[in-house]
């Protein structure tokens, strides 16, 4: 007999049941009672559709129990944690035609429903010494301890359902090939430039007459081309699996009734391959190491040893082909003009230009004053100083004139190495072919070079008053009027109340 719990009710008769913060009766554990396996699987299917069993698994316990009336039923118990979790479990159980209970050890009462928003309390507890007593608004039964059921074993006993759409779905695939087909499949995949990995797994012998283990090649293909999916599915001895969760894959063309991705019961170090058509699953307790497919490609060897022929011998006379460097004008647009050389006679112009230069140009441009003129370098471009001969930095420390290219067209690094400048010098190749080396230490910021600062006068600082300074006290007097002491009176004769306090 169940009583509905009323609002603000504080006393509950069922041991192990208490009211949570929302006032809902809740024990430490929740329990789902399924009369048959079908309903338990239905509950698992619905529950795992949009949430994982990971939270429930540490405390999950499935048992096949026998009731006092002799019927066999399935219980699924778990830590209740909160009424939010229990609400979802109860909704799912209602959909799967199962019942939900809450309790702590032996006595479980029906979890709340629309008729009792705060849950139920058992008015009269069962006196039987059974390990489990369930109190429902429609029945009240006791159950024996029952036998535990392993969720992983239960999942593997469920036969996958036919679902051809999984064959066409993109994504990674696991391909298992019988021993004889493995090398051919490796060659086929390598030749088709399909990336993947392969390993060889062993299974126990099929029968006692053949003691050697069964070997199969297991391929892991990140993306199996669509053109191959039909071939793989239709080739006897080759089975394609679709990864369905950590440590488990289901044969392509089938779908497991329960969302395996929401059931983290499979060891990630191994692999379980669930096969369709009533075949038993293939279990690999520990996955061996995989190797890249290309490592197993067939090798082609030359028919004969090439020998020492065809090896050139170094010449000792390179001068025979050396030519002088030349500069030729080109009509292509200028790019990356980062330096200029202002001749000595144009330096007054540069001084006048200094007043109109942007702060960033003054800050970033570096200048070296030499007897050949002023060399200015700005890594962002020297266009702001339209004076002199422009240079392009062909290589770090090597500047060639803009609008010219060096012939023969050797690499700039080769050209700098051929010019062999002293360490710490930048080379400027002028249009006439002459090369000027400027020491890097001669470059100073342009702003420093052009500014001639004037004399300065020292300013006297003014001390700031302390924020904690206190305002002075200024006595303000008002006219006293005609009767300045009006309203004043001497102290009363009776003792002041405060005097009495002091005397007390």
């Amino acid at each position, binding site marked *: 007999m169940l009583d509905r719990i009323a609002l603000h009710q504080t006393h509950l008769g069922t041991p192990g049941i208490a009211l949570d913060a929302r006032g809902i009766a809740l024990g430490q554990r929740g329990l789902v009672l399924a009369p048959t396996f079908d309903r338990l699987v239905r509950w698992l299917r619905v529950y795992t559709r949009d949430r994982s069993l990971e939270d429930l698994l540490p405390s999950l316990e499935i048992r096949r129990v026998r009731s006092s009336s002799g019927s066999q039923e399935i219980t699924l118990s778990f830590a209740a944690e909160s009424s939010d979790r229990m609400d979802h479990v109860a909704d799912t159980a209602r959909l799967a035609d199962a019942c939900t209970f809450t309790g702590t050890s032996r006595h479980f009462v029906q979890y709340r429903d629309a008729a009792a928003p705060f849950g139920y309390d058992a008015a009269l507890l069962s006196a039987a010494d059974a390990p489990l007593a369930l109190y429902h608004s429609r029945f009240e039964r006791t159950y024996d301890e029952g036998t535990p059921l392993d969720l992983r074993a239960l999942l593997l006993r469920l036969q996958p359902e036919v679902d051809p759409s999984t064959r066409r779905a993109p994504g990674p695939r696991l391909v298992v090939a019988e021993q004889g087909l493995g090398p051919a499949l490796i060659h086929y995949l390598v030749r088709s430039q399909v990336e993947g990995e392969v390993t060889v797994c062993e299974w126990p012998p099929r029968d006692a007459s053949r003691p050697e283990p069964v070997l199969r090649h297991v391929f892991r293909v990140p993306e199996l081309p669509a053109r191959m999916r039909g071939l793989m599915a239709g080739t006897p001895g080759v089975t394609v699996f679709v990864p369905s969760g950590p440590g488990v894959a289901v044969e392509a063309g089938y779908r497991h009734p329960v969302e395996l991705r929401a059931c983290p019961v499979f060891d990630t170090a191994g692999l379980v391959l669930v096969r369709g058509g009533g075949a038993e699953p293939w279990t690999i307790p520990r996955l061996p190491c995989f190797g890249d497919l290309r490592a197993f490609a067939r090798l082609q060897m030359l028919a004969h040893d090439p020998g020492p022929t065809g090896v050139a011998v170094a010449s000792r006379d390179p001068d025979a082909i050396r030519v002088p460097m030349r500069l030729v004008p080109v009509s292509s647009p200028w790019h990356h003009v980062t330096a200029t050389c202002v001749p000595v006679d144009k330096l007054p112009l540069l001084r006048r230009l200094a007043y109109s230069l942007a702060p960033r140009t003054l800050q970033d441009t570096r200048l070296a004053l030499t007897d050949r003129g002023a060399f200015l370098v700005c890594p962002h471009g020297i266009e702001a100083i339209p004076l002199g001969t422009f240079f392009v930095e062909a290589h770090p420390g090597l500047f060639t004139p803009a609008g010219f290219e060096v012939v023969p067209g050797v690499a700039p690094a080769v050209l700098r190495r051929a010019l062999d400048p002293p360490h710490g010098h930048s080379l400027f190749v002028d249009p006439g072919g002459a090369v000027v080396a400027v020491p890097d230490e001669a470059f100073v910021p342009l702003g420093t070079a052009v500014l001639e600062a004037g004399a300065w006068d020292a300013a006297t600082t003014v001390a700031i008053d302390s924020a*904690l300074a*206190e305002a002075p006290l200024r*006595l*303000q007097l008002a006219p006293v009027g005609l009767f300045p002491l*009006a309203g*004043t009176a*001497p*102290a009363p004769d009776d003792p002041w109340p*405060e*005097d009495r306090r002091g005397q007390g």
Partner: protein
Amino acid sequence: MGRVDLAATAKRLYERFLVPLVVGGDVAVGPAIGARAALSLDGGLAAVDTDVRSQVDVARVRVARRLSPVDLLEGPDAHEWALAAALHDLVYALHPELGGDAPDRLLDLAHQVLARVAPPASLAEAISRHTLFARMFELRRTDTAVSWWTGSRTFLGRSPPSRLLAWPRLRRVQTSERTLTLDAMADLPQGRRDRFVEGIARLLEKTPLTDLATCARPFPAFRWSGASLGLFARPNGRVLGLRALALGAREEVDAALGRATRPHVEAGASDDVARIRSVLAERALANPR
């Protein structure tokens, strides 16, 4: 005597006298309060602006934390109201326009009040009183003399009207200001001045921490009172007292303490001298040169 509106008097005393005495600014005195009203004031803060009370609380805590790490001080109690009223009347007695025997009567009323107020019963009360009266010797009166082409006039403790300062070049207006300390303000006949100084001294006996913190003052000269020696009799009071003494300039404080100790030595008051000597020894140890 007509009935006095005690709430209005308390509000006036708090806002125009006590608040600027603590926070700073213009301290206004008058009309006189009298002894009966002074001993009846207790409260009147309900009508005071909370911002003003908050400013006063902050300023009082600032003063208190120079001596002790306190964060909260209660509002004025009946003793503090009476002391504030007594100080008000003492200062009001210096009003230059008071004629006849009005200053003497005012001083008598203030003495009646001071005679009723007990010394602080606890260190918390001592700190609380000190936070109210710590700045009493900073009180200044500015006298402004204004002369113009046809005459001159002196304004004591009040600003000259703007009409007298108008057209300064044309009217050849000249102003000169003179700032007077409380000592200089007490420019009274000798007997009346002694009565005023005695009133201030008796007020300081009621707030011993203020007495110690301002012991280097020019007037009234510091003297060891029962309240100040009683403060040093308690361990925590001794710490507070030494901290209060440390607020003044060292040489001037030492000189004032020496002057105050001399009469006890000359009178042969061995108990007092022993107590004073222990204070001075501890002060010397706590503040080595």
